[in-house]
Structure formats: structure tokens, C-alpha cells
């Protein structure tokens, strides 16, 4: 057999072997066998010494071609095998993507804190300050400075936990109004504040009464504040808490520290005002109390009611939360059942 034929044969044989090789080792063995120093191609090249001068380059070229062909085939096969191997490995790594994810342990803010937070953010955006006062108050601030002298019949509207004759658990967050009015320097600008916090009433706990609940008091005092401004501000509150489509209406009421005073109803968010169980078929739900600051309150705090005026409002986050989420027992808020607390986890 001449050398050319031998080379052709080696190529055919080698390529077949490469194709048949099933793993990297087999391929490497083939490389050693065919392309190694003791391999047949080297042997052919060595045998070229005996050839004619003219023949030598031809055989040399062919030998190089065969060697390259085999080397390329080996590289390709190795690559192929690598891909196969990876595919096999990945195949083996397959998981059940429907298995549940690992739970993330996250705590929740209390639903009442969420409501208060929402109100705080709204009023911060409107340029209000947040001012918090003591839960243990003086009768002076809780009542007297709010136009409720001793023996005023309106004191019956709120049963009070007294500690001493002069000290009590505040029945409303309104005393913070009085404390702030007293201190505020109106030469530095208007007073715009809200005061969220806990309040206490001497009540027997049941589904609709709690001896402890929350209030957010609001107060704006400046030179040109009108009852129309009060309506506009409250409408904003109602829309923020209960939804863009809500409307409000005001009804005459009585609070010793405001005049005119109003109860504020919001159009029912359940039925949109058509009448349902939530709004007791009236289409409206009472949500807060408000009014124009009583001149006596301003006067007692050293603010001239001839020059300054303003409005105040008070709302109940407990009631808001009950209405918004359909909680039918106020005690739920203070018993802290984990299953209750963790329901209010939706953000955004």
C-alpha cells in the first residue's frame, strides 16, 4: 500500500473511531493513538524519507490534512461530549418548581397603626405637624381648656377614668390642641397639627365599646380659616381612607370646644350610597366629629379670637378599621391574636 492510500485509510478509520468514541477518555486515547509521537501518521511521515523528491510534498500535505482533519474531529467530538455531559448533568439537577418557596418571616404593623400611618402621611404631605401629648392628662387640659368647666353637662358625654381629682386618663386627644395652642407662636406662622394617640373611657368592654381606643385630633388655626376649608380638608381625609369616590356630608352636632360643630358622614363604601347593612340603609356612615374652634378655647389659650380662627376635627382609627375591614368586634384590636394581626399584611 502506498503512503497516500495508507493516509486515506487512517483518516477513514480514525474518523470512524472518533465518531464511535463515547467519552472523553476514549477520544483522548484516539488522539494518542493516531496523533501521538508513536502513532501511524508520525510513522507515515517518517516513511517519507524513502519517497521521491516530487512525491514528498504531496504526501506531506496530505499527511498534514489528515492530521488536521483528525484533530478537528477530535476537538469537535470532545465539544460534543462536553455538551452532552452538561446536558446530562443539568438533566440530573432538575427540580420541582412547584414545590413551595421558603417562607419569609416578616412581622406586620398593627392594623390600627396602619390606619394612623396613612392619616399621618396624608397630613404630613399637607404641611401638618404631628404632636403627641400625654395619655395621663390634667383635668385642666382634658376638659377646662376645652370649654368644659367642672359640672358642665357635656362632661357626661365621656365617662372618665380619674386618678385624682385633677389627674385622669385622657378621654380624647383634644387636650393636645389646648397644650399646643398655648405654646404656639403665631408670629411664626399658622398652626397645623394632628395628634394621634390612645384615649380611655370608663366603659364596659363589649363588641362596640372599648375602654381604650385611638383618636386622631386635627387642628388648623390661622387668620382666614373657614368652615368651607374644614369641609375640603375632611373630604380629602375621607377619599384617602375610604376611596376616591367617597363624598361627605356634615350634620349639626355639639362639642363644647367647637362651634359650629358637625358630625361628618361619609357615603357608604360598601354600597356606594344605595343603602346596605353596613350603613343601616341610610347610604351614609358617621365617621368623625369636627367644627370651628370655639372662641373660648382660643381665648383660654391666649389666642385672640377676633384675629385668629380655625377648625378642629377628631377621628377614630378603631372605627375606621372596623368599617374598612368589616371587623365586627372592637376587642379584636387589643387581644392580639396572631391570626387576626397577620391578616392585614397587604402593602401598597
Amino acid at each position, binding site marked *: 500500500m502506498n503512503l497516500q492510500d495508507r493516509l486515506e485509510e487512517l483518516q477513514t478509520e480514525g474518523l470512524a473511531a472518533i465518531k464511535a468514541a463515547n467519552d472523553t477518555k476514549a477520544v483522548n486515547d484516539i488522539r494518542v493513538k493516531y496523533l501521538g509521537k508513536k502513532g501511524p501518521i508520525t510513522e507515515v511521515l517518517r516513511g517519507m524519507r524513502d519517497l521521491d523528491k516530487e512525491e514528498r510534498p504531496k504526501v506531506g500535505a496530505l499527511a498534514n490534512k489528515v492530521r488536521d482533519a483528525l484533530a478537528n474531529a477530535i476537538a469537535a467530538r470532545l465539544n460534543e461530549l462536553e455538551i452532552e455531559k452538561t446536558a446530562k448533568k443539568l438533566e440530573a439537577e432538575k427540580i420541582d418548581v412547584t414545590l413551595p418557596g421558603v417562607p419569609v418571616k416578616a412581622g406586620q404593623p398593627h392594623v390600627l397603626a396602619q390606619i394612623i400611618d396613612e392619616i399621618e402621611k396624608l397630613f404630613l404631605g399637607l404641611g401638618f405637624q404631628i404632636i403627641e401629648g400625654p*395619655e395621663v392628662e390634667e383635668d385642666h387640659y382634658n376638659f377646662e381648656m376645652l370649654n368644659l368647666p367642672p359640672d358642665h353637662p357635656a362632661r357626661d358625654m365621656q365617662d372618665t377614668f380619674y386618678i385624682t381629682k385633677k389627674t385622669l386618663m385622657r378621654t380624647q386627644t383634644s387636650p393636645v390642641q389646648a397644650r399646643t395652642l398655648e405654646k404656639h407662636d403665631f408670629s411664626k*406662622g399658622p398652626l397645623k397639627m394632628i395628634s394621634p394617640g390612645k384615649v380611655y373611657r370608663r366603659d364596659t368592654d363589649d363588641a362596640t365599646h372599648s375602654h381604650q381606643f385611638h383618636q386622631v385630633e386635627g387642628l388648623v388655626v390661622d387668620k382666614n380659616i373657614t*368652615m*368651607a376649608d374644614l369641609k*375640603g380638608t375632611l373630604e380629602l381625609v375621607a377619599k384617602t381612607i375610604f376611596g376616591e369616590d367617597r363624598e361627605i356630608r356634615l350634620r349639626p352636632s355639639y362639642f363644647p370646644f367647637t362651634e359650629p360643630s358637625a358630625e361628618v358622614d361619609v357615603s357608604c363604601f360598601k354600597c356606594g350610597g344605595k343603602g346596605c347593612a353596613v350603613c343601616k340603609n341610610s347610604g351614609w356612615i358617621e365617621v368623625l366629629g369636627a367644627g370651628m374652634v370655639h372662641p373660648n378655647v382660643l381665648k383660654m389659650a391666649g389666642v385672640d379670637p377676633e384675629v385668629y380662627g380655625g377648625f378642629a376635627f377628631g377621628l377614630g382609627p378603631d372605627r375606621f378599621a372596623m368599617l374598612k375591614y368589616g371587623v365586627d368586634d372592637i376587642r379584636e384590636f387589643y387581644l392580639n391574636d396572631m*391570626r387576626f394581626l397577620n391578616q392585614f399584611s397587604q402593602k401598597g
Partner: protein
Amino acid sequence: MKVSTKWLNEYVKVDDLKPEELGEKIERTAVEVDGVSRRADGQKKIVVGHILECVPHPNSDHLHICQVDVGDEEPYQIVCGAPNVAAGQNVIVALPNSWIAGHIKIKKSKMRGELSMGMICGLQEIGFPDAVVPKEFADGIYVLPEDAVPGEPVWDYLGMDESIIDVDITPNRGDMLSMRGVAHEVAAIYDRQVSLPHPTVKEDASSKIEDLLGLEDADQELVAPYKLRMVKNVTIKPSPMWMQKRLWNAGIRPINNVVDVTNYILMDYGQPLHAFDYDKFDSKKLTVRLANEGEKLTTLDGEDRELKATDLVIADGDRAIALAGVMGGEDTEVSDGTQTVVLEAAIFNSSKIRKTARRENLHSEASQRFERGINVATVQEALDAAAQMIAEFGDGQVVSGTLEINHVDPENVDVEIMPERINKVLGTALTDEAIVGIFEQLGFGVAKDETGTLTVSVPPRRWDIAIQADLIEEVARIYGYDNIPTTLPTMPLTEGHYTKAQKIIRDARAILESAGLSQAISYGLTTELKAKRFMLDEAEMTQLDFPMSSDHTTLRMNLISGLLDDVAYNQARKVNDVALYEQGRVFLREKDAERPNDIEHIAGALTGLFHEATWHDAKKPVDFYLTKGIVEYLMNSLGITDGIRYEATAEYEEMHPGRTAKIYVNDELVGLIGEVHPSLAKELKIKPTYVFELDLQKLIDLPKNAETYVPVSKYPEVTRDIALLVPNEITNDQIVESIKQNGGRFLADIKLFDLYQGEKIDDGFKSLAYTLVYRNSEGTLSDDEINQAFDKVVKKLQEELEVTVR
């Protein structure tokens, strides 16, 4: 106050209005309306029956079989069990297939074998509350007047078809606690005229009150005016049916012609009256005075009361005979034998009445009105009207004259106001004419001077109006709150932001939530025992003067107790895994201070599993170190990283003595952490629970780390591990402190990565293994540098502490 539209219509035309609409209008313009209803609502086929015959039931010892004319051709046989049933009576009959109160249907039936075509009813069965049913009919059927026509519906006979508007009067609108006051209000709302009847008294010239009765002078502060009239030769009997209907529709029980008249006048004028039996007076000389401390009086309800020196009484000679304005006395009560009636009309000091009524828990129709005000203009008229009516209903005569002390002339109150002022407060643009129109609608006089100022003249019946704000409110109401525009305040810009402390408090909550704790809000009032546990600083306890329940008597001085209540509540409901925190105030009082300080705290309680086992991870039970990790995370996140020390403590008896630490920052006690004492846990019925409490106010006040940026080192960190055999008494803190002291300037961090106690270690020893992290931001650390530093640490550890390097 229950307002009958039928009665109201006599004073102001309302019969063209639907009662529900009228109610809605009152609610939108004046005061809240609790409801509009008729007693007949939901009831059907209840008619007048005349009992023709009444015989005992053969099979019963108390039932009767009655033949009753109900307007049909044939009488109906009805079995009746009432003790007062008798032939000849006109009665209330619920026919077969009728509906009575409480949505109950009456059917034809057999009672002990006898056919019964319906039921003869008592008032309670057709919707009258016990409190208004006349005593003589309380335990049986009601007997209708003789002229009632069999077969006619009973509604009109009993006033059951009258619409009743239940108005909820706010404390400022005491003027509406009378039919006449409501009439004025409704007239103002609808711009209508009132037409009020005024009585004329026929006095008997043969007797003068001055000759029969004396009245001593009294302090003007206590009562003004005080008036008495007398009616003689009175026969006590039931009052006329029309009056009884008005009373029970107003929620008052008819009693007799004298008492009913006083109650009727009370409802009509809002003027409380009291009737005494003249013949039961000893001295015939009355005094209004303050009670003597400890003086005794038996009131009409049979209660023996011991009076205080602040109580106002009416005295006959030395003897107190009535608690003025609150309740009369039993001794001088009008009874069946009364012949001469002394009637009292007065305006008592409202704050005295309020004090007495509150203390004695006697909130009567009368005391409520004295507290909220009385129309000074109608005291005499009400007294006259009552005297005249009693004389008429009791066939007696009014003794001539009124005894009076502390006379008051009713005067209008003038309030000046500029129309601009009203528009400025309300944000409206009402014309002067519109404003004047509203005041006139209210029945106020108005005069306008050349400056445009209005002088509004307010009659005494609106004693709630005295200042400009009162007038502005009246205009707002009558104009309609709905008609006021809706705007937002225009004013100089103000900035809204949380204060630093508010931000820290809110951030602290968010940090604990991100650490896996949910927020609890527990009660601020607790028991004495719970209030005093887990305290960080000594303080005096603060207690309620008059608590409502034994569970809430004392102001809390810690938050953990409340959280443990929450844990117990959860675990009682099989929720075993609890991770809660609370942020709120505790109330710490200094010795001799009256008011405690509100101090912001933050606390947590963890029990059960922090993570349940999942298919993926093993369960993770709560323990001390998990809890400590949360506290560390909180403090670090708040920028408190230096000077923190956990010091083991056994001084809390409510805490596990070996698993509790006080937390110090810069040697100031800021908190407490540990396991609840197993015996307390057992007592509270909770599983092992770890708690912490921090004085948040102290954390707020602490200086915080400056937030500066440190460039990330470009050079690699080098670590060295060291394992130490350490006697048990030596704490991690001691070792870390030593390493820190001797670690050199490149030591960046020390991490404990292993703690081992067990077989391979001698008793009394533990093995601790640390990784020391070295870092140099200016260059690569050489082995020599590290080795030198590390060797020093090892050497010093062995010298300073009894440790062995393993």
C-alpha cells in the same frame, strides 16, 4: 325625647310632611334623630272587642271563656288567662291571623279543648314597654274606654298610629327638651309660624295662698325663681285618655291626674314641676336650702338617702321633704287620698343638681332639664297651666296667688354681629338680607345700624345663645351645612415632617417588623400585679380612683406583661408560635408626684417556633440568642453599636435566674432580656417564652453613630481561626474584650463560629472557636504582620484568662 307629630302639629303645621322626611330634616339641621316609628308598625288586625259573657274554663283554674263582640254578626269565643278579665269590658282583641308586637302571628286555636278565636291583649303584647303601662293594667289585659266601638282598630284609641320622632338632644340644645321648643325649632327649619296655646287660670277668690303656706327667703345662687301654687279639693283619679296617650307616647307611665299633669307640663314646656300633698306638711312653711351633712330623706322610689351638704333640698320646717330638682320625698307624696296639692315650679342651680344626680345616680327627666337649662320666660305659665289642669281634672279649685321668691324678669339677650364676620367664618357669601332672614326665621329680633352691624335679640327660650359663635352656628344650620362651599385652606406654607424622636419610634417598629415580629397593641390599664413586673427603673404605681373592672385598675409600668397576656390568649387558642412586639407608653410616677410620666418603651415576646419545619428547612425554635439577635439588630439599626453590655442578672423573680440579662449602653440601664421564669410561665399558662423590653426614650436620647462612608478596602482580608478551651465561668465578652485589646490595628472583626461542650471536653470547660478578621485599607497585609498580631492575641489570652489554645 320622643316627639309625637300629632301633638307637634297642634303647635306648628307638620301634617303636610312625611314624618320620616321631617325626621331627616331635623337631623340635618338641628339634632340627631334616632328613628321615626309608630307603635302600630308591623302589627295587624287588632281591634276593639266588647266582652258579652265571661265564664270560667271547665278544664282550667284560671282561664276564662269569653264571648266577644268584635263587630262581626256573631260574637267570637276567645279564651283568656288574664286575672282582670270580666264581662262588660271593652278590650284589645288580636283577631285570628293578626300580627302583634315582636312579629308574632295569632291564629285560631284550641286551648284545653275550647276554641279560641284570637287573643285578648295586654298593652305589653302590642308593643308598650313595661315602663309606660299604667300600674293597674301591668299584670293583665288593658281595658279600653266605655265608648270604644267594637270592631274598630285600636290604634287611634291608644295613640298607636301617631308617628314618634325620637330625637337625641345634645347638651347645648336643652331648649328642645320640650314640645314647645321642638315646635319653635321646626318652625325655624321650615320657616313656619308657631301657634302655642296659653292657659288662663281661674282662681278661687275665697282662699289666698299666703294664708295657707309660708315660703322663706333663699339664696339667689341656689334657686331663682322659686314659685308655688295650690289647688284644693282635688279628687285623685286617672287623667283623661288623651293625656295618658301623650304621656305613654312620650315614654312616661300615666299614674294619676296630678302626677300626670306635672309630667305633661314637663314634656310640654320643659319645666319640671313637683306636686306635694299639703296635708302632709308639718309646719306649712317651706324653705329651699342646702342639706345638712348626713341629713336623711326617703325619696319617692323608696330609697333612704343620706344627704351631703352640697345637696339642695326643700324643707318643711326642719324636715327635708324633697331632693330639689331631682326627686321628691315619700313623706309628702301625692297619693289617692290627697285633697290639697302644692305645686312647685323653679329653676335650681344646675351644677348643684348635676352633682347630686350624679352621686345618687338619679338622672330623672327633671334633673336632666335643670342641668341643661330652663326657659325662664315660661316658669309662671307652666305653673299656671298645671294648676288649671289639675283643678279641671280633679274637680278642684286653684287657690289664688303664687308664692314666689327670687323673682327673675325674663329678658332677651342682644348679640351684635357684622354679616361679614359670619361669611368670614363660614366661607360663604350670604347677603345681609339672607342673614337677617335666617334670624327672623328663628324668631329672633334683628336691628341693623348705620355701620351695618346687626343687633340680634334672642328670646329667653334660646338660652344657649349668648355670643357671636352661637349666632354663626345658627346661620350655618339653617342655611344648611350642605350649602357651605368646599375649599382647602389658603395660607403660608408650612412644612410637615416627623420630629427626630417620632422618626426613631416609627423606624423602631419597622425594624422589628422586618425582624419577623408583629405589632401588638395591648391595654394600658392592667392589674396591680402585672403593672409592677419586669420594671427597668423604680417608680411609684398609679391607680385609677374608680376602676370599671378588676382587670384594669392600674397604669402599666412595663409592656412585657401585656405581651404575655397576648401570648396566653394565643396559646389558649392553640396558636403556639407567637412573635409579637409592642411599642407604647409606660407610666412611671415619681414619689409625691400626682401625674406619672409617659415613657416610650418597646418590648417583644417570642415563644414556640420562630420558623416551623418545612420540607426545606428544619424547625427553628425561639431561644435566648435568637431574641438577643433581634435586640442587637434593633439597636444596631438605630445606630447604637458601641458601649453595649449584657449583664447576667438573677434579681428579677419573674425571670429565669440563669437566662436573663440587663442591657446597658454606656453603663446606663436601657433594657432587659431573657426567659420568663418557668413558674410564672406556668401560672400564666404559657409555654417557655423569651422577652425583651427597652426604654425607647433612652435610646432616642443616646448619641448615635455618625453616618459616614468608609471606602470598601481594595485589599483582601486575611483571617485566622483560634479554638480555645475555656472554663465555664469565663464569658464570651471577656474573651472578645481581650482579643480586641490586643488585636492590633488591623483587627477588623471577631466572629464566634463554634461553641462546644460535651464528651470530648472536660467537665466545667467549653470550647469556643473564633475567626479573627484582619484588614488594611492601605495595602496588602503580609503574613508576618498577621502572625505577629495573632501571636500577641494568643499569648495575652493565655496570660489574662485561664484558657488553653486547642
